[in-house]
């Protein structure tokens, strides 16, 4: 009788630790996401200013510019899939914006344009860092809820796998190029 009691107490203690661990890990993910979100907001601000500057300086109109402005709402939606998807699409359009300055030399001597390009590079780096951290927290959490015996209870308690947003090789290459290129 005494031993059964001890076993039950130990199980309860284990359960408390396991449960708190899950809560904590899930909160890390939340926090990590909010730091991505902050950077996405910065990115939309910088992009809006950049598009305005280009339009003002060159009277250049293009689908790309409109598309970038159109992506704003999605990037700020707060829905992870939607926001990350929009972010990736926008990132892929940035090289073509940079190409605009090739045909408009006045842009290259425009201080605010140069500043904004610097900001873009900066914010892209920050998103990559925030994403690294997000992915780390997701991997940690997923490992926890998939390992036995936590896996039995995790499902019951409504803890399901989270998705990591891996940085694809193409993007990494692109952002490395962005780093190296002299802006």
């Amino acid at each position, binding site marked *: 009788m005494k031993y059964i009691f001890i076993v039950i107490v130990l199980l309860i203690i284990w359960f408390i630790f396991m449960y708190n661990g899950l809560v*904590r*890990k899930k909160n*890390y993910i939340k*926090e*990590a996401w909010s*730091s991505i979100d902050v*950077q996405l907001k910065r990115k939309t601000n910088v992009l809006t200013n950049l598009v305005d500057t280009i339009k003002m300086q060159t009277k250049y109109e293009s689908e790309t510019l409109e598309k970038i402005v159109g992506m704003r709402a999605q990037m700020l939606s707060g829905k992870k899939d939607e926001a990350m998807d929009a972010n990736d699409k926008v990132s892929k359009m940035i090289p073509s914006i940079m190409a605009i300055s090739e045909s408009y030399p006045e842009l290259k001597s425009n201080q605010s344009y140069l500043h904004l390009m610097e900001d873009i590079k*900066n914010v892209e*780096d*920050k998103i*990559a*860092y*925030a994403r*690294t*951290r997000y992915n*780390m*927290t997701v*991997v*940690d959490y997923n490992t926890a809820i998939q390992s036995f015996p936590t896996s039995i209870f995790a499902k019951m308690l409504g803890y399901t796998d989270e998705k990591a947003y891996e940085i694809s090789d193409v993007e990494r290459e692109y952002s490395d190029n962005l*780093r190296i290129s002299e802006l």
Partner: protein
Amino acid sequence: MSEEQRPVIIYEQVRKNQIKTFILIAFYIIIIFMISFAIGYYADDMVLGAGIAFFVVFILLPIQMLTGNKMIGAKTHWQEANMSNPGENKVHHLVEGLSLAAGLKETPKLYIIPTSTPNAFAGGLSLKNAYICVTTGLIDILDEPEMEGVLAHEMSHIIQRDVLVSTVSIYLMSAAIVLGSILFRMSRYNMMFGGGTRSRSNSREKGNSAAAFAAIALAGLILSFVIRFVARLINLAISRKREYVADANAVRLCGYSEGIADALEKISKYTPEYSKQQVADLGGDEMLCLYIFNPTQWVMPLFSTHPPIEERIKLLRNMY
């Protein structure tokens, strides 16, 4: 070396380190209190015992902690990073990014030491007032991925709370050993003289205990030099291990091991040995153990704060 190969999540590590640090420091403080009270007991004066403990923990320790930072600043002539300098600005952006990746709520401050010797170190007793310090020479010779690696290494030291742990534990450890040896002497003295000091109200014996106390104090003073030496050896062992862990965490933070490996190679090739002037510019001999690269070569590996640089580079290159 199992610890550095285990995948640890930086954030989780911050928490675990907080707990570990707290336990370690609490452990030292409890020991100091126990020894001090024991000394008080033998000296037949419990107030003295309590006084010693309070003095060591609440007066000497805070002084030690508060003055450390200022001393480093005065020795190295550092300046806060100047954002209009493109090189320093770049480093600042990297620090911001890495603290995002590490999940630090506040970005560590960035200081620049005006010397051409490439090196870097991290400091600060809490996450809030943490700082990273790089030399202008380092900014000059490293490219971006390399600089990122070095900064990630320093960021790992901050996360591991290495500075706090080493400052406080070295101090408390030495204090505990000094007090412990005083106690040891006292108890032996007591045994030899048949516990004379415990039996009270005899004026001759009171004088006796005062003389004994003076002798003990002298012995303690001599012993403390020996103890400092031992404490230093322990510190070296701890710091060597922490260097490896910081290297491994740096790789995890930037997801890329070549950066830090290349940086270490560049730094060690650039200045394989330091001249007296270079050591002075970096803040003197006792500062060197804080830096990412410490060229001081000791005959015995037991005495070096850092593992051999070739060993670190080799480990890093094998990591991914």
